[in-house]
């Protein structure tokens, strides 16, 4: 996704006078900047004279874990959280997280803005067997754009990279977000300037402009026709997981029963038999990690995997 040529129409902007609170849901994974974006937005809303409630969940996230932040603003806001189906804007910093929160987007009028960046979270790799399918979402940009009328999928990182500062990707997203909310551009920039390090102000404001310009110039119809990114990490594995896949060959005559493999196996597949020789007890649990092979001082274990990946 790159910057479009020229603006065609402004995206759907909600009227600010409506009594109900306006809801922005920002989602992503740890380390991306969900909290930073929320803070900018909340500060902006407050400066514009609205009541703001921001609630976030990030405690267990660390790097790579899911993080989300609810920002609600309006004349009066009671509840801090956005009910399902009532987010006016869903801003996803990571594709799969965006998909996961899709039910929260208000049908018909909701705006979906997503960075196309993909970060496969640890829980998506729960099946640790080599070649096993990951749990990453299957929806492609195309399917989402076809289903959600107000959808924007942009490569914020790519745009930031063109400006020479990869770290400004979040500001690019703020620029895109600004087109979905009816605040003055100068107000956005003023708040952003307060949040970013002084020496990066200039480039961040450029990034904001770039994001905003990209969103204003976004032509859904032509994008749909020319879509190139059909990636889906939800890949079908051609190889069955489990024992048939990773086979542990044990040369009994070479095993001296030192027990290292049994104790080191992360899946506890191996046991010592009554002859004090290692034996494969739970072949279906074997992930082919090769720990036993590497640490066997007697070369008695060979792990066979069809796609041997040398380190």
């Amino acid at each position, binding site marked *: 996704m790159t910057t479009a040529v020229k603006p065609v129409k402004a995206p759907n902007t909600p009227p600010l006078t409506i009594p109900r609170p306006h809801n922005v849901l920002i989602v992503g994974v740890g380390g991306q900047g969900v909290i930073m974006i929320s803070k900018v937005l909340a500060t902006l809303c407050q400066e514009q004279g609205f009541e703001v409630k921001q609630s976030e969940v990030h405690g267990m996230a660390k790097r790579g874990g899911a993080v989300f932040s609810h920002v609600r603003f309006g004349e009066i806001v009671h509840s801090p959280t956005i009910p399902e189906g009532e987010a006016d804007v869903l801003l996803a910093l990571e594709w799969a997280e965006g998909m996961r929160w899709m039910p929260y987007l208000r049908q018909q009028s909701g705006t979906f803005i997503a960075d196309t960046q993909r970060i496969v979270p640890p829980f998506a790799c729960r099946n640790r067997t080599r070649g096993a399918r990951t749990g990453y979402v299957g929806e492609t940009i195309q399917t989402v754009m076809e289903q959600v009328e107000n959808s924007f999928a942009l490569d914020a990182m790519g745009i930031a990279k063109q400006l020479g500062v990869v770290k400004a990707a979040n500001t690019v997203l703020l620029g895109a977000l600004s087109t979905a909310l009816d605040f003055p551009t100068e107000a956005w920039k003023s708040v952003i300037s307060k949040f970013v390090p002084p020496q990066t102000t200039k480039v961040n404001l450029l990034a904001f402009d770039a994001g905003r310009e990209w969103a204003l110039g976004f032509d859904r119809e032509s994008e749909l026709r020319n879509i190139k990114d059909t990636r889906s990490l939800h890949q079908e594995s051609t190889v069955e997981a489990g024992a048939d896949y990773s086979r542990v060959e044990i040369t009994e*005559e*070479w*095993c*001296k*029963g*030192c*027990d*290292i493999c*049994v*104790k*080191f196996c992360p899946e506890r597949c191996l046991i010592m038999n009554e002859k004090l020789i290692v034996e494969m007890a739970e072949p279906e649990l074997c992930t082919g990690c090769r720990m036993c092979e*590497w*640490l*066997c*001082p*007697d*070369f*008695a274990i*060979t792990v066979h995997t069809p796609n*041997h990946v*040398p*380190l």
Partner: protein
Amino acid sequence: MLDQAKTPFEIRDYIRQQLFPHFMCPGCGHGIALRALLWAIHDLGIAKDDLAIVSGIGCSGRIGAYIDANTFHTTHGRPLAFATGLKLARPDLHVIVITGDGDCLAIGGNHLIHACRRNLDITCLMLNNEIYGMTGGQVSPTTSSDRYTTTTPEGNYEPVFDACKLAQGAGAGFVGREMTLQTPSLKKLIQQGIAHPGFSFLEVISDCTEIYGRKNDLGESAEMVLSQKADFRSASYGMIADEVFQPRNVKTGVLYKDDRPEYAQAYRQKIASRAKK
């Protein structure tokens, strides 16, 4: 040269299978070190015919025989001396010395420091298990403080050698340390050491389970291997780690590297300049 090999590493292509199972005790770390060495050789694409393994005496000295290459099991403490002659006479061979803490630092200490100083293109793999295993478990220059051996019945009271500091101080062009627990990292370090054009000194943290482990109640093989992690950490941790890891304060990884002229190269240059006069 560090490019990864195209074919998968099959350890049986590199060992003399007819000699297996090898003679080492159950759980001996030297076997793991041997795997890492062979793996590195494979990944470097070194032909077995071009490989010369020179070892000394002791448990470490015996593992060379299991490698399907040109192997030389020499005298106690002297493998570096033999290797110096071999490498100078045959610069086409990759000469790798396998030695132990006693072999290399005690009886062979003089050869080590001078091999470092000369910086001849040899890779010296010192398997440190902190003990003279072959002779039944006597104290070595790297036996940790207070550890029991058959010659320190009240616990070791002698200070310990830091072999890597010694090698660096003596002028080795490449110095590194890794534990057998981290087999892939060990392999990578050995690979870098062999690729380095000059003398590379690599200390491998290995375990003597049957003698040292028992005598000091260090647990079974797996416990001993795992305990390596508590004592060592990567050189890349840098200064902060120095304060955290007080007890042994030993780093792993590539500890030192320079591009001082290699000995044979310096020799040839001098001779060439003499010829011109």
